[in-house]
């Protein structure tokens, strides 16, 4: 399936030249895995740099470098986590025994994968069982996410595998997983969210 929703070009340029922070880079990489149009754009943006790299005069190569590379590949071979539809970039961030968190909501769980201190941002792997509604909430900062499997209905927007979603600060919504398949997504969120309703009250009382 070809995604309908794409990241901004500035993200693709940042990815093409290595300027994205880790969380953003992983998000873009997850999108590129199913979006040939954006991958073509990234390769186009990197083309001049690729020409430069290709024209470099070779430096002397240490005799043992290949053996070191193969040794590292074998040492760090990654078993694919059973039952998780996640790409290699996400699988490498998962703890050996994933410690899922929740919000007192059946059918929803998440793992924090990466923390970025400067913007109080973090990257999360999120799982919603089919049909689960995530409770109403308001974003305190920017959230960007990519659907890995299944899909979400968010107001009038339908998001499916590979789609990129952006929620600006102050966005208020309650997305629902599509009814026929579990939804897996990866999300980079700045400054967290504030729930509405009783969850919001509980959140305020707990000082979060």
């Amino acid at each position: 399936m070809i995604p309908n929703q794409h990241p901004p070009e500035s993200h693709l340029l940042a990815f093409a030249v290595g300027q994205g922070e880790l969380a953003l880079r992983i998000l873009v990489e997850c999108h590129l895995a199913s979006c040939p149009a954006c991958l073509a754009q990234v390769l186009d943006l990197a083309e001049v740099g690729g020409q430069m790299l290709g024209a470099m005069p070779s430096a002397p190569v240490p005799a043992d470098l290949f053996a070191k590379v193969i040794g590292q590949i074998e040492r760090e071979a990654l078993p694919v986590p059973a039952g998780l539809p996640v790409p290699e970039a996400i699988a490498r961030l998962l703890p050996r025994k994933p410690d899922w968190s929740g919000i007192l909501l059946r059918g929803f769980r998440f793992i924090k994968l990466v923390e970025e201190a400067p913007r109080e941002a973090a990257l999360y792997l999120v799982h919603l069982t089919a049909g689960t509604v995530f409770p109403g909430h308001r974003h305190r900062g920017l959230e960007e996410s990519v659907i890995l499997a299944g899909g979400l209905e968010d107001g009038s927007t339908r998001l499916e595998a590979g789609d990129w979603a952006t929620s600006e600060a102050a966005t208020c919504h309650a997305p629902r997983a599509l009814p026929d398949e579990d939804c897996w997504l990866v999300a980079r969120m700045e400054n967290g969210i504030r729930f509405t309703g009783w969850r919001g009250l509980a959140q305020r009382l707990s000082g979060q």
Partner: protein
Amino acid sequence: MTNPGIDISPASPGLHGYGRLGDRELLEAVGRQDREAFRVFYDRFAGRLLAYVQVMGKGRIATEDVVQEVLVAIWRKAAQYRADLGSPEAWIFTITRNKVFDIWRANSAVLEDGDPNLEAVTDPTPAPDPTLAVSLGKALAGLPPEQRDPLILSYFGDHTYEETARRLKVPLGTVKSRIRAGLSQLKQHLGSP
């Protein structure tokens, strides 16, 4: 995923077959986790990667260690490359720069003063493609400084966007838009599609 028992010595007959492949087909074979293809790929690109990281890095971190990480990343991610969508060198450029910046961030590497050594990029004498090296140097020289400087620092060189903005005393968004504009100009000069 791996096949530790495979013979990857230069005498392996498969290597000669892969040696006849173009870079696109070779990288696609690496994406199928073919170790013989990876050996040929390594022979073709390791020297250039070492040279590139040396030019880009100015000694922020050990070049050989970085290139080892880059080659491991290429092995792991090669299946993501699509030969019909762009050149292997462009994909390798992207993988390399992402890995280099990751390592620098992880090691809190401190930026040294001075410009990236672009003379090494544009010096045609030892390059396998001297025509390209000359034309890239000329194309860069033909850009207005406000486009050339952020390109040299952030696209070819080792400065983050933030470092480039501070160095050039312009807003972050201006750095990004000038890189984009400069890149378009550069591609026109070079005759890229």
